[in-house]
């Protein structure tokens, strides 16, 4: 693939902030109509690389390159004015933070219009027409009205599309898209990727950045894998997916849960020390055993919320489920479908309007908090953002001491033994005990959250998007940990995620939610292989996988 002159060619790119090198010796090349995917875990330098390509590496940066050609222009030593004439016209840039990349105070029409106006394209009226046409082309309904709205009035997917519209307004020869789908629901993400695919089909070169191999696998021609500022492996998509050479690439691929059966390891085996089992031994899970009593069950749960100036908004409508001991009940659905509301009702944090929740066959949601309190230790919870669930003033040891002593003390020394046990159970070094959770990495924080949830020996864990904030590789470790704990301790999980592949990998049974209702439920495999409801099918179709069948070429 080296016939026409590349649209982007960069050689030996080095970027450092102050004394810290962030990008080292990166060379990339993108031809017209070609799509290069840059993948790698968080902090590996992908975004910095992308920003450097348009001369916006950031304050305090030092950028050096052996060669830098953008759309046929040697961009080294360009004046600010010359840079500005390239940005937006020759290169379209879609920022990573899609949700905040449009000025919340301005109409999106204006934002898109800026791109046109700055490069002197047409009269006001002509530009207005073009804005509407652009919005339409990215698939926004009612583009005239949308142009008059501000980003706060749009959903995440709409914002992402408006941002794309502003980036492609002048048909740039090169489009750089930094994590364009991370914040989106599966169905919307699929639509956005399709849109980018169209652009590429129209002849634009594309640099697509993602931390997630599965996302890019369906779109990219070439994949460059980045680790710690360096490109460790480059090659055609099929080769990278099918025959990864570098250990890091292998690990990345292994971490993708899609298509991995239940309990299959996603992360490289790290020695989790065997510790005495903290809870009573639980018989191993035997699939199909339906005689067990559910640990947590919900009967026709409903809940609506007051909306100022409008009718009550039903967030959850008439939900039933049973969670069996040692099993995982997956809940999947797009944003706003009522997953968290369901979880909060299950936790007894929110009273249902109708219906009830029972814990171990005893009333749970219908009794006052004082009667629930004694049974709280049976039920643990972990959240998407573990850090905010810790008291910022408490150290890791204090957090665990508090949980272990049922709130009686926060002195880690009183429970030193159990704390060490818990930490090693979740794969954390005991030395971390003195640290503040804020100083831990994302994966470590989630492990700590799990350790805290385990401290009172619960039988059920409610996990609300426990891995959606994590990198694939870290996600893999946490999922593996959860799997292992379930097997060892016989925990029942209510596992919530918007990520189908994660749900599929983790659950025994699954609920598919949409707009507060369960549209489909059943054994995971049957739901995934033989979806009944059209919505489930749409979800599955939108879900990226690494199945080579979905590869375009």
């Amino acid at each position, binding site marked *: 693939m080296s016939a026409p002159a590349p649209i982007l060619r960069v050689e030996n790119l080095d970027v450092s902030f102050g004394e810290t090198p962030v990008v080292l010796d990166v060379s990339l090349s993108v031809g017209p109509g070609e799509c290069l995917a840059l993948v790698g875990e968080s902090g590996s330098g992908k975004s910095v690389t992308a920003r450097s390509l348009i001369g916006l590496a950031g304050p305090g940066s030092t950028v050096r390159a*052996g*060669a830098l050609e953008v759309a046929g222009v040697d*961009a*080294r030593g360009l004046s600010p004015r010359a840079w500005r004439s390239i940005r937006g016209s020759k290169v379209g840039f879609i920022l990573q933070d899609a949700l905040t990349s449009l000025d919340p105070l301005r109409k999106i029409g204006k934002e898109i219009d800026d791109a046109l106006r700055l490069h002197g394209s047409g009269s006001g009226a002509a530009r207005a027409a073009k804005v509407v046409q652009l919005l339409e082309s990215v698939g926004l309904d009612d583009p005239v009205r949308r142009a008059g709205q501000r980003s706060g009035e749009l959903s995440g997917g709409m914002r992402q599309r408006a941002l794309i519209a502003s980036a492609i307004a002048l048909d740039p020869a090169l489009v750089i898209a930094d994590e364009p789908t991370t914040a989106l629901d599966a169905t919307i993400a699929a639509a956005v990727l399709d849109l980018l695919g169209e652009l590429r089909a129209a002849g634009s070169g594309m640099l697509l950045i993602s931390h997630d191999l599965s996302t890019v696998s369906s779109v990219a021609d070439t994949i460059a894998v980045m680790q710690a500022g360096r490109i460790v492996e480059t090659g055609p998509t099929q080769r990278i997916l099918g025959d990864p050479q570098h250990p890091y690439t292998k690990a990345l691929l292994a971490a993708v849960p899609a298509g991995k059966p239940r309990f299959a390891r996603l992360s490289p085996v790290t020695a989790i020390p065997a510790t005495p089992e903290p809870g009573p031994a639980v018989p191993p899970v035997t699939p199909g055993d339906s005689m067990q009593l559910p640990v947590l069950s919900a009967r026709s749960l409903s809940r609506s919320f007051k909306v100022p100036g409008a009718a009550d908004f039903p967030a959850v409508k008439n939900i039933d489920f049973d969670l069996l001991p040692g099993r995982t009940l997956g809940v999947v659905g797009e944003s706003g479908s009522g997953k968290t509301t369901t979880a909060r009702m299950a936790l007894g944090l929110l009273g249902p309007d109708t219906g009830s929740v029972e814990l171990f066959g005893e009333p749970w949601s219908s009794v006052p908090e004082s009667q629930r309190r004694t049974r709280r230790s049976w039920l643990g919870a972990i959240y998407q953002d573990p850090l905010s669930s810790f008291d910022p003033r408490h150290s890791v040891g204090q957090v665990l001491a508090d949980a272990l002593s049922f709130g009686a003390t926060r002195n880690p020394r009183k429970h030193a033994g159990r704390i060490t046990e818990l930490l090693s159970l979740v794969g954390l070094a005991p030395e971390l005990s003195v640290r503040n959770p804020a100083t831990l990495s994302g994966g470590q924080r989630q492990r700590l959250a799990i350790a805290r949830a385990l401290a009172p020996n619960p039988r059920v864990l409610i996990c609300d998007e426990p891995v959606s904030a994590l990198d694939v590789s870290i996600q893999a470790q946490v999922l593996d940990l959860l799997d292992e704990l379930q097997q060892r301790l016989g925990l029942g999980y209510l596992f919530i995620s918007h990520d189908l592949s994660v749900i599929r990998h983790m659950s025994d049974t699954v609920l598919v939610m949409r707009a507060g209702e369960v549209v489909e439920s059943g054994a995971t495999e049957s739901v995934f292989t033989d979806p009944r409801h059209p919505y489930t099918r749409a979800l599955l179709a939108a879900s990226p996988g690494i199945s080579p069948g979905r590869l375009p070429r």
Partner: protein
Amino acid sequence: MSMDKNELSPGDPVLAPHPSKRPAPGTGGLRALAARLPLLLSATVLAFFLLAAIFPNLLAPYDPLAINPADAFSGPGPGHLLGTDESGRDIYSRIIHGARPSLLIGAAATAIGLGLALVLGTIAGFGGKWLDFGVGRVLEVLFALPGLLLALVFIALAGPGVGTTVVAVGLTTAPGYARMIRAQIIALRTSPMVEAATVLGRTRSRILAIHILPNALAPIAVLGTLGLGQAVVWAASLSFLGLGAPPPAPEWGAMLSAGRTYLALAWWMTFFPGLAIVLVAAASTVLSRAMKAAGAR
């Protein structure tokens, strides 16, 4: 133009030079020092006045009350560093000795303001819907009254004096603090941290005692530091209107107010006590901002 500060390094192929027209700032060390200079200066200023408040005799060469009419209105110079006042008292010594009453008034007023705010804020943040509504209204009413009116009426009620000034200033500053503390408590009350504690089976009062109050109190150090400076200014304003510490106490506001009469003749009588107030207020702002930044991490 803060976006790009790429450095030119000859020999290497270089990307776009930064769009800024200014030359790149000097060496890193100097820049780091410049960044920390305000904090250092502020800490020094506060430390100095704190020392003055605790051990005035250590720093002051003269008795702040000793009059010497023959020596009145001498300008700043070797004999009297910052000059003398209308009774020949040494201004520098008076400023040093004035640190204690001035800072004490400021600190006590801030303490009262914060204390009151804490009670109100806690009631509002934790006392349920109606109490919150009620306290909210009370705060709004307090806000709607100009601070000085509140202080004036209070002083008219209780008679002038240091104690009254302290309470008056505390009263005037309390609504602002209360609003912040209430917001803080409400934010904490609905925070995932509290939810997590609930899920762990903690009672409401435990959560209040262990998680909410301590965390709501953390920013109070920041507020208090900021408030100290402002309270000193407020108290000085009241002193200026003749409602502060009785003579001959070397309280800064009173000194300033006395000096104003002689502005044309002896500017130093007004300028230096005013400078002390400005220094303390500014330094406490810098310190509080630094504390806030450190807290935000």
